[in-house]
């Protein structure tokens, strides 16, 4: 779900940029190559985009001199670590790998800075092994992420944990490429 939303935002931003920058830029390329894009949307008012290369500090500036509008929610910024909502794990392991620590930390900081925000950490396992063991493994993975978030400043009351074991694979399939995508914890925001 989070991923789909992210793609929508990227594509929308890309299309707007294309419109602003003129011809010759494919939306997909824009979405990937021009990182600090901010999409702004006001309910009912459509959207506009700020210029490239300006980053977060560029709020209030526009490319075409149009009106400054409400900023994109930090959780929806495609280039931000906060847009990453899935932590992957090794086989039969609940250890958060080094490469995912920055993502966990970004969410922990966000939670610390937004006391009303609330997340559910959904723990999942691949299909190998038995279902109830995988339920426990999924919970252990989600708890490992929770523990880390709390160490990094989030309040434990902001975080719920639920394990789906192997019942909700992200990818169907019976090989390592599917399994590696199914051993995961998904960070789901219930309140921002």
């Amino acid at each position: 779900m989070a991923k789909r939303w992210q793609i929508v935002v990227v594509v929308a931003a890309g299309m707007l940029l294309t419109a602003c920058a003129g011809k010759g830029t494919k939306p997909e390329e824009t979405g990937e190559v021009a990182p600090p894009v901010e999409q702004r949307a006001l309910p009912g008012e459509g959207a506009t985009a700020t210029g490239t290369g300006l980053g977060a500090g560029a709020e209030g500036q526009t490319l075409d001199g149009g009106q400054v509008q409400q900023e994109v929610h930090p959780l929806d910024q495609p280039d931000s670590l906060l847009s990453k909502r899935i932590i992957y794990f090794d086989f039969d392991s609940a250890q958060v790998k080094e490469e995912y620590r920055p993502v966990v930390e970004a969410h922990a900081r966000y939670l610390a800075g937004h006391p009303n925000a609330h997340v559910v950490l959904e723990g999942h396992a691949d299909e190998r092994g038995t279902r109830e063991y995988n339920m426990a493994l999924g919970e252990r993975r989600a708890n490992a992420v929770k523990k880390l978030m709390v160490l990094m400043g989030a309040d434990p009351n902001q975080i719920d944990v639920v394990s789906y074991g192997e019942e909700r694979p992200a990818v169907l399939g019976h090989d390592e490429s599917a399994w590696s995508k199914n051993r995961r914890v998904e960070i789901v925001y219930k309140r921002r």
Partner: protein
Amino acid sequence: MKPRPMPRVLIALLFLCTLAVPVQAALTIEITRGVEAAMPIAVVPFAWEGSGAPPLDVAAVVEADLERSGQFAPLPREDMLSRPSPGKPVQFRDWRLLGIPHLVIGRVVPVGVDRYVVEFQLFDVFRAKALRGLRYTVPAARLRSVAHRISDQVYEALTGIRGAFDTRIVYVVRKTGPDGKSRYTLELADADAANARPILRSREPILSPAWSPDARRLAYVSFERKRPEIFIQEIATGKRERIASFEGLNGAPVFSPDGKRLALVLSKDGNAEIYVMDLATRKLTRITRHWAIDTEPAWAPDGASLAFVSERGGSPQVYRYYFADGRIERLTFDGKQNLRPHFSPDGRLLTCINLDEQGRYRVAVLELETGIMRVLTDTKLDESPSFAPNGSMIIYATEIRGKGVLAAVSVDGRVRQTFQVEGEGDVREPSWSPFLD
């Protein structure tokens, strides 16, 4: 002796059309491996003493049961030289000529509105002697069950082991709905996969169904409220009760042999631990205390101990807890992991899922006295093994050609069957019922 063609497909639902029973997920059973020297037997079509067509071909059900066990090779009907029925002398010579050592004959007599007398006899052909004979009076809807009881009698008379044909299985089916999302049903079927019917439908996962010892209730885990909760459901009425909905895991329910307690897994105190709930008072007793995962409890048939899975030794292995002194001992040492234990009805064997160095999860049997473990299957993603109530077969879930299917293997590994659901859908989490009486 006739060679057995393998694999040999049996359409177990062939006769269902004569019964007004709704069929949900039709299963077929395929014998993928049988005993080399299966015992020849002849099951003569039962004489029908009514008008029109008989409500059920009872002999065909008996024949299919015996064949499915892998231990019997029924004689094809077209090879029979005579078709004896009770009340007339049997020409044993006809059967000796064909090398058939045992013969089953019978008849079905209508005796009133929707009442039938079914009678059978089992003969030792070479000694020209009746071994067993019984008579049942039932309505048409019970004829199938009577056929399975006849199979049970024949099986017991010839193998010395109580038959488990007149029993049931429960399992979970996952299908993809028109919206692309999963639909789950908890289904109940006869042990030959006939009469399949859903007893619970959900858009969220269902797992770990477990029978009460009187076969009247099922405990299971349902995610219907987006988190795991344990329910107990009465099969006959559909009445159910939420029995555990603590914070965190609520899983792996199993009834004690006396039906008064439920072993289960909760993580309310931090991580997955085994508890026992007194069903009358709902009082919980905590069994394990360890930072490692403890899960998948299984009662020993005498109720004095529980087997369970723990990764306290570094990898998940099977341990045993004794209620008398709280002692815990490790039971499995072979392989990288051993999961989901289940005791044989006599308590001498334990089946579990064994992970080997090649990454295969396969059904294994551990002989508790010697500690010798044998792997019984050659699939790769086996799960949820459970013994038939007579201890002869183990039913389990596996994956064949990308689909979740049920399969069964004899305890000696010589007989194998697969149950395949028709069309799209994954079948999983089987559990074999206790004896029904």
